[in-house]
């Protein structure tokens, strides 16, 4: 937790002797102030969620109510469908992550390790796919899913999110960096390409799998637009889509609104605290944006 990238002052300026004595306290002051500003919205949401609902809409604001209560959480869990949303998010996100890792690493393996007709053309398609703005295609994509009978299904949420050309490039870069000699002896022994892919290259690519996996997971878990478009039944809502209905359906019950927001944020916040280093390094190495 304490050593994420660059804990040893990356690119840190080196000061000459006797210089910059005044600079460091100023820098600390600026950083602490901004970090507080950044964290205040989350703290305020937590503080609100622990108040009795009647005490949230009073001016001037107070950080603490007359008592600390989990009443809002109980109410949110009781009447909300958040457990169902957790389940939907978990199942779709898990399948998307596993499916993306499998399909994109297989394609990347072929691009990195094999010669075949059409290789260049397919590689160009992957590169072209990088610049296609998925968000601009929701209407034709929905019409297509509807004609397949996949609107309002888990598969309707999952399948389009598997098309991640960037993951092919990340895996290809990882495979390209591995020494070719590793597969030669296996080839002499007559091993199949599947064997080489599954038993040699994939176990050696744990870091790449982790980077792609974490980012696909975060991206899919937080994806709002596509699940919002493709589902209309409340029973299929994921966390982001379900929480989007809270603002209108809960009205001015802000303690409950914040309680459910905290509950919705919790899984990834915990995952982030546990895997902070991997997440941050994954971003730094791949430039993958969620």
């Amino acid at each position, binding site marked *: 937790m304490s050593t994420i990238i*660059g804990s040893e002052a990356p690119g840190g300026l080196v000061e000459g002797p006797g210089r910059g004595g005044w600079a460091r306290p100023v820098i600390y002051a600026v950083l602490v102030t901004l970090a507080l500003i950044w964290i205040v919205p989350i703290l305020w949401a937590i503080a609100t969620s622990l108040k009795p609902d009647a005490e949230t809409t009073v001016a001037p604001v107070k950080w603490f109510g007359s008592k600390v209560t989990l009443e809002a959480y109980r109410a949110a869990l009781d009447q909300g469908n958040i457990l169902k949303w957790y389940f939907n998010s978990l199942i779709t996100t898990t399948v998307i992550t596993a499916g993306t890792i499998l399909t994109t690493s297989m394609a990347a393996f072929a691009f990195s390790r*094999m010669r075949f007709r059409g290789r260049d053309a397919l590689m160009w398609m992957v590169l072209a796919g990088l610049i296609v*703005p998925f968000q601009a295609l929701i209407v034709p994509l929905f019409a297509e899913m509807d004609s397949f009978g996949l609107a309002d299904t888990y598969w309707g949420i999952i399948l389009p999110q598997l098309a991640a050309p960037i993951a092919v490039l990340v895996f290809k870069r990882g495979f390209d960096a591995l020494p070719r000699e590793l597969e030669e002896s296996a080839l002499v022994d007559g091993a199949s390409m599947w064997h080489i892919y599954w038993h040699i290259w994939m176990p050696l690519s744990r870091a790449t799998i982790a980077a792609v996996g974490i980012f696909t997971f975060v991206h899919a878990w937080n994806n709002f637009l596509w699940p919002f478009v493709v589902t209309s039944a409340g029973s299929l809502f994921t966390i982001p889509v379900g929480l989007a209905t809270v603002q209108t359906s809960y009205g001015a019950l802000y303690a409950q609104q914040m309680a459910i927001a905290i509950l919705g944020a919790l899984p990834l916040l915990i995952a982030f605290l546990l895997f902070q280093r991997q997440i941050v390094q994954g971003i730094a190495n791949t430039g993958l944006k969620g």
Partner: protein
Amino acid sequence: MTSATQSLPRARPKEERTARRRSRDPRSSPIALVFTAPFFIVFVLFLFWPVISALRTSLFDESLVGGSSWTGLSNYTELLHDPDFWAAMWHTAFFTLLSVPPLVALPLVLALLVTRVRRMQWLFRLAFFAPFVLPVSVVVLIWNWLYQPGFGLINSYLTSLGFAEVNWLGQPGVAMISAVIVTLWWTFGFNFILYLAGLQEIPRELYEAAATDGATPGQQLRRITLPLLSSTVVLVTVLQIIASLKIFDQVYLLQLGGPGPENSTRPAIQYIYEAGFTQYRIGYASAMSFVFFLAVIAVTLICMRLIRRAGTKTVVTE
């Protein structure tokens, strides 16, 4: 005995087959297509085909509730004269213009400052990056609460400091800025981390050598850090432009699905969404999708040229 002699002629071709298989490297066999097939089936069905489909459907007067007739280019002439479409395109461009400068500059300044302190680095990274892992609906729930008039935290502090209240979400001219502030808070950490990674790649010896030669921290910043960081700055700028052009989620949710005060915030994707899913005009929505698609691709290609000129290796979108 007989069975052994019978098996002999069979054994020989089998040996020949394996010999041939060995001489023919499996790495150049058509099996490669099997490896690429799962990805490309998904890719063609869900990324490539929708583009073709948008172009084809845009030439029809098609409705999601049934009925379709050829109309040629009339959807395109309609969008040329649709002020709401161009307003939406402008809102997307305006959001991009407002959001890119702070999201490129502020994380850079903060990253430079964080690398100058020795203690609490992890705490700063935690604070600045944590919002990035929140789902957009959580972000909007929190900020909608912060932006409330009267008992909202921001307005409450403003009035106690003697300022007038701001109608953050309901006033034209302010509503879009409020969305930019939310976006800045939410996605700041991503660019911040990219800058930290870029800074980490600058060899420490350069600074040590410069310090020995008597260079001040200011000189080190101008002569070493900024020049060596320029490709990261270009990369962050390009990724941010492309991400900002796809604005929809937080603007749509902050305005509860509406067009914003006096139709001042509705971005392009929202207008396309409404044409498709509330008016069921698939043909018209497809025409607008295709125009927006081409606009984003054009900007992306220009940006990628800039990346190449700046000598950055990584080419990433989304």
